[in-house]
């Protein structure tokens, strides 16, 4: 079934399930997680916090579920985070969307974020979401250099 990529919930569910199916850890972050914590701002793209994930693995996982994509950039440093961007295309009505994979530069903290992630039931699908304290930490890390 073709996904409507203008629908952020559909993108989040499809991406999360594809990664999970491939055994890759991910949890919703960014505007979608913020909306789940009660501060909606009508964000279209999906940000996912990841740990120990190679972008090629994520690409393969999404393609295996019939999602077409282009890698925009890989592991670009934003403060204490590494961000990789995938543009998903070929959705319903020619729609497209963007998924950012966000990984803390500290692999230990990246693992902790996944361990603390909570689970939300969206359209009857279980989707992992970063815990509120990690949401704040990740936002802080995005603007700060990692210490020695």
């Amino acid at each position: 079934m073709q996904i409507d990529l203008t629908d952020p919930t559909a993108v989040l569910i499809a991406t999360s399930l594809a990664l999970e199916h491939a055994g890759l850890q991910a949890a919703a972050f960014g505007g979608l997680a913020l909306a789940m914590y009660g501060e909606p701002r009508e964000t279209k793209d999906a940000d996912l916090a990841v740990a120990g994930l190679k972008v090629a693995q994520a690409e393969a996982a999404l393609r295996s579920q019939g999602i077409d994509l282009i890698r925009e950039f890989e592991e670009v440093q934003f403060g204490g985070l590494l961000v990789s961007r995938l543009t998903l295309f070929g959705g319903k009505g020619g729609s497209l969307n963007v998924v950012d994979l966000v990984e803390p530069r500290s692999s230990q903290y990246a693992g902790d974020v996944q361990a603390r992630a909570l689970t939300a039931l969206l359209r009857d699908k279980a989707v992992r979401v970063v815990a509120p304290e990690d949401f704040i930490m990740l936002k802080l890390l995005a603007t700060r250099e990692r210490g020695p």
Partner: protein
Amino acid sequence: MKIDQEELNRRAAEADRARLALRRATLELLAVRDQLLEQHKSRQNADRFNRPDSSIDRDEPGA
């Protein structure tokens, strides 16, 4: 660039569909707030209970 009426209508319908999808998603995401906060609260309580230096242990007479 000139756009004919048919193309304009198509684009307007597309924009409207995208706007509705976004609005629906925002409301759906907002609806899971209580689920997440309840889960977070339960986990915090469990962590507090399992902490070895919790006040329950310290208050035990003769402990």
